[in-house]
């Protein structure tokens, strides 16, 4: 039975976590398990498994953060950034690809060298120190294909079969069904995958890890954790000494509340996290909270992405089965002999119905020939490109000077353009995608550029020196000692890997760090 705690607004001994996704719910649960009192503020509502249906349009509307935003550069003005507003955050939507960073990923500046236009630094975190945290994260999440869990890899669906056949035919060897935080058999009280499809609309049986039905209820069971859903953080306040002291939020009834705090962990995704710090400007923090570096909201990274959809000679039914259990890793390794640094992964991506195919295969296309591609929906195979996106100072999340949200606050103004390295990666990835599908007998191949994915990173990055970034290797901000960045905002680089596993591993390590500091009365 859940015996969720209730804490008072003036209880200054609690850790206030903002956000209940991969970062927030994980750090919150880990703290609660250690006996630390936690209040988790979540802007979205709390759904249950029975609310999750195999209906892409309905679930998109239900899960997605659709508050107004302004996008510019190469972003889709309709949906400049994709994240979720619901208890569990983007872990409701994610496709559950759970990959560790490669060893070189922690040292992009040292390995790639200085690159014009790229704001590269090395992570203060090292490959070696993260390995035990990756083990723990994989066990928490039930990652299939992980040595730490011992869970076997998922079987490949039809879309994987096409990718795998074509990739191996052109000579790739590191091709498999990925490491996925989807149960390949029953694990941790959740069932094995039924190959339902619809992973990204929310997993209706809970075979995919989501904090909605793992971290949040586990934390509540400790009696140390209070979830306040439909509570939207408006600003973080500080005391005269410059320590975070409270979080002001709009509650479910539209009333402003002020929750006092001993520690504040911000995990609102790399869009809302920097926005909240920028909204928390005061006389002491004139450029936004924890922004003496000027890097808050800077270095916004997505992934260098894109997609390919191929009409194959036979039926694929690519929408059946685990959506992203299929990967080609070979091009993900950094090589010195290419016209770009870093690389890219290719991951299976189904068309997501005839509507998804029509919208995405060739945006804006119409007419007889394109209608024929859509008529061949059954025969379509698809993949997604995940390449490293260079951090650029000008790619950013700032406050819009004019547009306001429903609470009267400036909305996020998001800007992203490709670095030349990104463009070179995508061009090569398109060539590879074509060669793979041609090798498997494709009749028609459409390649296309990025659409909004839930990979938002880097707007409050980790850095060794306080002038280069916003937080240290534990996510603790350089400027405000009891303020932590607990989500993908703290990423120093984007790497070629999907971000969630690393967000979870970093959040677990952060909770351990916070608990140690609190035990020593240093927080």
């Amino acid at each position: 039975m859940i015996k969720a705690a209730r804490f008072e607004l003036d209880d200054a001994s609690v850790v206030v976590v903002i956000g209940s996704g991969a970062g927030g719910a994980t750090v919150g649960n880990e703290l609660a398990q250690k006996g630390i009192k936690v209040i988790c503020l979540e802007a979205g509502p709390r759904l249950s498994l029975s609310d999750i249906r195999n209906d892409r349009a309905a679930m998109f509307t239900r899960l997605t953060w659709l508050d107004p935003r302004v996008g510019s550069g190469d972003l889709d003005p309709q949906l400049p950034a994709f994240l979720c507003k619901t208890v569990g955050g983007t872990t409701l939507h994610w496709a559950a690809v759970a990959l560790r960073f490669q060893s070189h990923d922690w040292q992009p500046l040292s390995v790639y060298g200085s690159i014009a236009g790229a704001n590269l630094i090395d992570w203060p975190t090292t490959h070696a120190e993260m390995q035990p945290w990756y083990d723990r994260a994989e066990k928490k999440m039930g990652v299939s294909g992980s040595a730490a869990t011992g869970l076997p890899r998922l079987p490949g669906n039809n879309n994987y079969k096409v990718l795998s056949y074509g990739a191996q035919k052109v000579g790739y060897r590191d091709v498999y069904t990925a490491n996925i935080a989807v149960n390949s058999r029953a694990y941790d009280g959740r069932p094995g995958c039924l190959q339902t499809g619809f992973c990204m609309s929310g997993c209706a049986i809970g075979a995919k890890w989501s904090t909605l039905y793992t971290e949040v209820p586990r934390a509540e069971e400790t009696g140390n954790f209070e979830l306040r859903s439909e509570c939207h953080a408006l600003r973080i306040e500080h005391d005269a000494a410059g320590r975070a002291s409270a979080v002001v939020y709009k509650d479910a009834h539209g009333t402003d509340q002020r929750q006092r705090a001993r520690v504040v962990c911000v995990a609102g995704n790399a869009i809302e996290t920097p926005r909240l710090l920028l909204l928390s400007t005061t006389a002491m923090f004139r450029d936004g909270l924890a922004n003496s570096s000027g890097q808050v909201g800077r270095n916004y990274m997505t992934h260098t992405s894109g997609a390919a959809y191929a009409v194959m000679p036979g039926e694929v039914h690519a929408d059946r089965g685990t959506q992203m259990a299929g990967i080609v890793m070979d091009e993900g390794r950094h090589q010195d002999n290419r016209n770009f640094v870093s690389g890219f992964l290719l991951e299976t991506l189904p068309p997501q119905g005839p509507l998804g195919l029509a919208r995405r295969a060739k945006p804006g296309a119409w007419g007889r020939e394109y209608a024929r591609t859509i008529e061949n929906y059954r025969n379509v195979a698809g993949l997604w490109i995940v390449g490293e996106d260079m951090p650029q100072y000008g790619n950013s999340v700032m406050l819009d000077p004019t547009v306001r949200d429903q609470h009267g606050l400036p909305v996020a103004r998001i800007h992203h353009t490709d670095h030349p390295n990104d463009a070179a990666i995508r061009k090569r990835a398109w060539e590879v995608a074509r060669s793979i599908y041609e090798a498997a007998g494709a009749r028609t191949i459409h390649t296309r550029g990025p659409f909004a994915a839930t990979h938002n990173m880097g707007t409050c990055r980790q850095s060794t020196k306080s002038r280069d970034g916003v937080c240290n290797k534990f996510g603790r901000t350089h400027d405000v000692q009891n303020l932590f960045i607990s989500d993908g905002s703290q990423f120093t680089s984007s790497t070629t890997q999907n971000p969630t596993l690393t967000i979870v591993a970093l959040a677990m390590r952060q909770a351990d760090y916070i608990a140690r500091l609190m035990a020593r009365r240093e927080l």
Partner: protein
Amino acid sequence: MSKAFSGVSRRQILAVGSGVTLLPLASLLEFACPVPSASASDDSLRLTTFDPREAALLQCVSRTLFPHDFLDDRQYMKIVATLDSKAAADKDVAVTLRAALERFPDNFAATVEAHREDYLRSLEGSVFFKLTYQETLAGLYGDPVVAALLGDEGSSIEHGGYLQRGFDDLSWLPADKAANK
């Protein structure tokens, strides 16, 4: 299972499913837009803003944007009905659409598809084009009936997913390289 590169010919899919041989493309291109017939007898498609000429043109525009010969006119008329209600609710939409339709060539619906495509291409970027394009795309492929005809299998959870229902039933590739490593 069909191994053919399966286009579908007019209305045949309703009778025989997906494994249909394609009509030669050239013959399809000869078709003019069919004369709309669905609206007159169907209350759900009764229009309040557009007159019969405008409705016929809009239906033809929709079909030219995403021509599927196996779909009957009613599917395209549903899109016209949606545009009609948007026009009824928003005067700017009504004015924009009617003004553009006023300038359409007299023989638009009667001409062959290639000519109709040429004309619509000249409108790309206009508000008229954006409205009709977006409504046709979303209205057509977002319609569960159309999606199902195109092969969308819908919700699977109530059937136990595809674990026992063909998530990996692809058999037209040599097995050795397609199997999981």
